[in-house]
């Protein structure tokens, strides 16, 4: 026996919380056929019966012609789900019942869930749910999305309803040709239904202390930026213990595995896979997943309390120029710390197109690892004030790069006709429900760990094959052969084979860049070690500086720095983007764009800089 239900509700109705709690780990994410709208399907089992749950895209109504609304309407009409669970916010009953008025016209089996009953109660609001159920002719369930006990009641009711479903017995609001008259009919319908069910006394609205500060034009923005930076630090703290354990793996495993396998006379090509590549891949993926855990905890908190909505209010004007919602400020600021954090922070965006566009733009933001490389490399060729200029130049190009990305991909991901100014509710400040936040964060982190491990291992293996050399000498690696063969081409873009190899290793991990430079200019270690066993290598930047400045020109160094900064982010950030967007096609598209953009930029910087040196 199976059953199928669909969840329908406005944004902020608590729909995703209910969906996540109902389905737990049994979720599948895809796209609606031919649309850039995410499709979430999951399932749960109750009393031996399996129920599939479709989380319909959130929208305020169903009459508009946005993709979300068309998909939702078509899906309900198709009858693919036997029951629609309509969610409304009990604390804003009149406004959120609008969705039920829209649904009423579709005349399909339904039940109503009044979410956030606790908030409504705190507001002194009384709702006669029995009277409401009687009027509507469908069951009405008072609910608290964060109360685990309520889910049993919900599941039980769903099971009962699927056996004997109800349809609204009340007549649907009359349809009018004019949008204005039509909406009025729907709100009149709602008022009529709520009469004698609940009473709302018109009262003076007083902003909470939180809002009075958060909505100040300048102070609010400063606080937003400070809070996101703090959030980054907290994510790092959450990450540290897990990542610390993860980073012990390569150090602990390297020597014993190496000794054991070498003792068995295994070919070094295989030995290094087990002693270096696999432990390192594991360590990388653990670090990545634990950072994702931290980001999900802090963003879950910020989202639930209502902070993200305030940030959206503050930055909407600025970010709308990039085709983004104001909310994108949070993942973007996160990107200055780590692109992985930025990519998974885009969970706060409302739809897939916005999420993908925000991730693409976050890639333009140099992460902390890049900021740790640039001054070092720059310092080898330039004086301190010239290094400052390099950094300013990079920062300036961040803005240019973001604008280019939004121009190139924005038209498809956030079509102009869907870019409308902000019309958004600011949900009241809620207390965070830690249990729920932690549960969801751990689930997401584990999920990304499982799914990214394969991608990361595969790409690591490719890089391993390229960088392997039996004696550790770079000149005996495939990378050297490829690099020197195509040097005439890369030279045109401003990079010789050495810097080009380092540029490639940056796409693998930014931490590998200095080690790779050390390998190609000094032969102090192998590229393989730089990429897979950074613990085992150390770079003397003074010596490296001397070697580099004797081999390459300042113009080439400058071109290299720009290319490395504005190329694709590291493999971990790439695979996070892939896993978050669920779209290999778009991840590859954006990655190719970034690589081309980096090469063109490198070419321009090199040829201009050559004029002055």
């Amino acid at each position, binding site marked *: 026996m199976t059953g199928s239900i669909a969840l329908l509700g406005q944004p902020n109705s608590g729909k995703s919380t209910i969906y996540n709690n109902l389905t737990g780990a049994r979720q599948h994410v895809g796209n609606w056929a031919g649309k850039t709208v995410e499709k979430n399907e999951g399932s749960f089992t109750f009393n031996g019966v399996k129920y599939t749950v479709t989380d319909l895209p959130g*929208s*305020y*109504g169903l*009459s*508009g*012609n946005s993709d979300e609304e068309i998909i939702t309407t078509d899906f309900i009409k198709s009858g693919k789900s036997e029951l629609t669970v309509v969610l409304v916010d009990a*604390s*804003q*009953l*009149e*406004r959120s019942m*609008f969705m039920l008025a*829209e649904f009423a016209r579709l005349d399909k089996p339904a039940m109503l869930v009044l979410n956030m009953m606790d908030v409504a109660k705190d507001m002194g609001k009384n709702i006669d749910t029995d009277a409401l159920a009687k009027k509507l002719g469908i069951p009405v369930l008072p609910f608290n999305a964060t109360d685990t006990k309520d889910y049993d009641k919900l599941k039980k009711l769903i099971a009962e309803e699927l056996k004997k479903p109800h349809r609204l017995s009340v007549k649907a609001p009359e349809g009018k040709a004019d*949008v*204005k008259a039509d*909406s*009025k009919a729907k*709100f009149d319908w709602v008022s009529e239904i709520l009469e004698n069910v609940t009473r*709302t006394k*018109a009262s*003076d*609205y007083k*902003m909470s202390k939180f*809002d009075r500060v958060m*909505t100040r*034009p300048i102070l609010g923005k400063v606080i937003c930026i400070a809070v996101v930076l703090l959030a980054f630090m907290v994510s790092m703290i959450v990450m540290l213990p897990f990542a610390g354990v993860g980073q012990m793996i390569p150090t602990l495993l390297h020597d014993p595995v190496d000794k054991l396998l070498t003792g068995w006379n295994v070919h070094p090509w295989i030995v290094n896979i087990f002693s270096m590549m696999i432990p390192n891949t594991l360590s990388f993926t653990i670090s990545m997943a634990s950072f994702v855990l931290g980001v999900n905890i802090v963003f879950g908190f910020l989202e639930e309390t209502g902070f993200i909505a305030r940030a*959206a*209010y*503050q930055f*909407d*004007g600025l970010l*709308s120029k990039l085709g983004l919602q104001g909310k994108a400020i949070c993942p973007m600021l996160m990107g200055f710390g780590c692109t992985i954090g930025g990519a998974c922070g885009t969970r706060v965006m409302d739809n897939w197109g916005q999420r993908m566009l925000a991730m693409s733009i976050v890639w333009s933001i140099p992460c902390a690892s890049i900021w740790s490389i640039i001054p070092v490399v720059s310092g080898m060729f330039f004086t301190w004030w010239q290094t400052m200029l390099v950094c300013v130049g990079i920062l300036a190009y961040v803005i240019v790069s973001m604008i280019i990305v939004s121009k190139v991909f924005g038209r498809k991901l956030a079509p102009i*006709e869907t870019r*409308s*100014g*902000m*019309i*958004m*509710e*600011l*949900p*009241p400040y809620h207390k965070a429900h830690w249990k729920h936040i932690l549960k969801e964060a751990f689930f997401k982190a584990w999920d990304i760990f499982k799914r990214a491990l394969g991608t990361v291992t595969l790409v690591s293996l490719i890089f391993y094959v390229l960088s392997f050399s039996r004696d550790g000498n770079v000149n005996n690696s495939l990378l050297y052969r490829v690099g020197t063969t195509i040097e005439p081409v890369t030279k045109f873009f401003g990079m010789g084979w050495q810097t080009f190899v380092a540029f490639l290793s940056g796409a693998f991990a930014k931490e590998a860049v200095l080690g790779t430079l050390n390998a190609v200019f000094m032969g102090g270690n192998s590229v393989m070690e730089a990429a897979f066993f950074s613990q085992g290598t150390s770079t003397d930047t003074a010596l490296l500086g001397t070697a580099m400045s004797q081999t390459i020109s300042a113009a080439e160094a400058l071109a290299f720095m720009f290319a490395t900064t504005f190329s694709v982010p590291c493999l971990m950030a790439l695979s996070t983007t892939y896993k978050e967007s669920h779209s290999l096609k778009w991840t590859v598209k954006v990655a190719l764009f970034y690589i081309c953009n980096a090469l063109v930029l490198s070419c321009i910087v090199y040829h201009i800089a050559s004029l002055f040196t």
Partner: protein
Amino acid sequence: MRLTDSTADMHGRILSVSGDDHFMNRITSIGITEGTAFQTVRNDRKMPVLIYLRETLIALNRADAEKIEVEAV
């Protein structure tokens, strides 16, 4: 007057909303319909207008807020 001309703490009523169907659908589905009582909460230069309406705090960008005629009550 237009919503953008209202001042903080003003209580009012929506007189008329005008725009294309796409806009009308968006604005009415969030609850802004003719005759609805509201309170302006914040109206700062270059910032979205904040209003309280149907028990909800709503942020409205300025360009769209200009299309809404209101009266004080």
